[in-house]
């Protein structure tokens, strides 16, 4: 297995872990944690391809990952604000109980 394949398998395993948590756990914040892990796995994938790819001088991988991190931070902030707002309204952060659109 080339080093690239080891990196890609690691990122696939990380993605699967994040995905498993996001669809299995009941608490809203843990779903966001799973999403963050998935984003990190995607970033790792990008850096692995940048490092072992044919043209690392173009810095495309690094720039992509920097923007992806900025986006992930913004999305985490807004998502957690949403969770806090839902908690204030429904007094629960259990996703099984927050299943009605009516306010």
């Amino acid at each position, binding site marked *: 297995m080339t*080093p690239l394949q080891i990196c890609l398998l690691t990122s696939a395993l990380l993605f699967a872990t994040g995905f*498993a948590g996001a669809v299995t756990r*009941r608490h809203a914040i843990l779903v966001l944690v799973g999403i963050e892990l998935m984003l990190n796995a995607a970033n790792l994938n990008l850096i692995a391809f940048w490092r072992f*790819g044919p043209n690392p001088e173009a810095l495309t*991988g*690094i720039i992509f990952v920097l923007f992806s991190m900025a986006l992930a931070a913004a999305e985490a902030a807004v998502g957690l604000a949403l969770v806090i707002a839902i*908690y204030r309204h429904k007094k629960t952060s259990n996703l099984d109980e927050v299943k009605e659109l009516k306010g």
Partner: protein
Amino acid sequence: MPIAFILTAVVTLLAAAAAMSLRNLVHCALMLAVSFSGIAAIYLQLNAEFVGFTEILVYVGAIAILIVMAILLTRSGETPDKSVLTSGWMAGIVVTVFVFVLLGWAVLNSSALPQTMAPAPHATVKNIGDVLMTKYVLPLEIIALMLTAAMIGAVVIAYREEAPKTKREEGIPIPPRDSLLPPPSPTGEKA
């Protein structure tokens, strides 16, 4: 390269698995911080130093703290008694396994992956800065706008409006001043 990398990868994956499966939410958040640091270490091993430091700055220093604060603000700090898994968790596990098998098969059997290793690149901060300001300046400006919008949006969503005034806040009537003083002594002398 492999031994250090495999060790870091194992630590990261174990921390990520712990982050998703522990019962206590704060422990999950702390394990998430550990897995972020593990990923930063992997970036450092892949010669992407700038990205590794940025990962620690953004993820460990800010996002992990944000998650912890949200856990405390929604009062989920104690270990729950009931089950922590949502209904229909088995379907989730099945889909996860399927996704991982698909990705693993694609990685191991793909012919599109480059087989020759390029020499280790040296991404200096100067090059990153040059490229950010010339080739990628439009995404940079859009990210700035997006971050501003996200910041304002997060504040607006989580803003606590003024609580309605309850009867208590209208004021407890203040007793008249004389009733607070001790009763005057009969002779008028100082006690």
